């Protein structure tokens, strides 16, 4: 379903004034939008968690949306922040193998391309993007990622660390 910028902005402004019906509609729309947004850049078993964490952040930081500004760039900034934070936390946990293919993402509207996670990834050096993609998105172990990428195991770790740090610094970058 295509989300409409003006409708979302209006619903958010109403939610800021305490309109619960508008807020329910807003959160449902955002849930759908976020699932599409994250789908290609997070392992499937983490998708719901990440969407829920982002909705919680939206709830806690509702005041940070300025109704005079576009809505989706604000939501995308919140989503990117949660995504990087989520990957950093996963980085500290043991690697988990993922079975099966990652489902293909729906076609992304061109207007949202500048907000996308793909766009953010494109700013990373190739080796860092590859290491993050293999370990954090596809769920390979460090050893498997090392074999798949041709990087040493320690280099894979360094590239993940540096890549995540770089992503964290570029969250609002278009």
């Amino acid at each position, binding site marked *: 379903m295509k989300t409409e910028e003006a409708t979302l902005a209006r619903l958010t402004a109403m939610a800021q004034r305490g309109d619960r019906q508008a807020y329910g509609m807003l959160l449902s729309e955002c849930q759908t939008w976020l699932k599409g947004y994250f789908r290609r850049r997070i392992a499937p078993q983490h998708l719901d968690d990440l969407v829920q964490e982002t*909705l919680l952040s939206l709830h806690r*930081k509702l005041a*940070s949306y*300025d109704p005079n500004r576009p809505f989706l760039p*604000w939501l*995308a900034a*919140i989503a990117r*922040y949660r995504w990087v934070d989520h990957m950093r936390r996963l980085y500290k946990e043991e690697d988990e193998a993922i079975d099966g293919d990652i489902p293909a993402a729906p076609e992304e509207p061109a207007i949202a391309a500048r907000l996308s996670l793909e766009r953010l990834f494109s700013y990373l050096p190739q080796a860092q993007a590859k290491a993050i993609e293999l370990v954090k998105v596809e769920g390979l172990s460090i050893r498997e990622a090392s074999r798949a990428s041709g990087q040493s195991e320690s280099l894979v770790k360094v590239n993940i660390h540096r890549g995540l740090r770089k992503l964290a*610094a570029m969250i*609002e970058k278009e």
Partner: protein
Amino acid sequence: MNAMRTDTENLISGLVDELQPVRPLRFWRGLGLALAAMALTVIMVVTLGGVRPDLAAGRPDAMFLIASGLFLLLGLAAAVTVVVMGSPRVGNSHDGWRWAAAMAGLLPLAALLLALGDFHAAWIASEPEHGLLCTVYSLGLGLLTGAMLVLWLRRGAPTSPGYAGLLTGIAAGCAGVFAFSFACPFDSIMHIGLWHGLAVAVSAFAGWLIVPRLVRW
């Protein structure tokens, strides 16, 4: 029907029940608060410490005007950036303050270049017996602006807490130095470049170190 709802739908339902009206962060209100904090700091200095003799006589020294103007501009540029960071948005740029920093950085840079010729004379010219007090007072006076910006960031959603902390520190340090300049009687480039510049540097470091813990979300 309710048993078939997903976790996310239950979460949404809970969040809707919790909703309370909120006052959106607006740029001009944030900037107004930062300016009010800076103005209040200047009023405190003038009221409690009095003003420099040249100001009292209505003939401000050129060095005072240039140096305090540069610190004010840097403080404003950093404060504006912090206010903007409270409302995140893909497409925001937070680099404008760097030009103001480069201009204000000329003060310590000029002091350093002059000190290369005769370090001892430069040290004496910096009024070291008063200098550290200038730094400490400036740091203390910056706290009001710093606290206001931290509160703003806590209500907002800064996506780069470390960067936001650094800029909060710079804004607070510059506000403190600017306010204290109204009372500080020393106009040499060595004094301003070293002790006033040191206050901004220390404040920036403290902001970078402390603020992220207070504003992370």
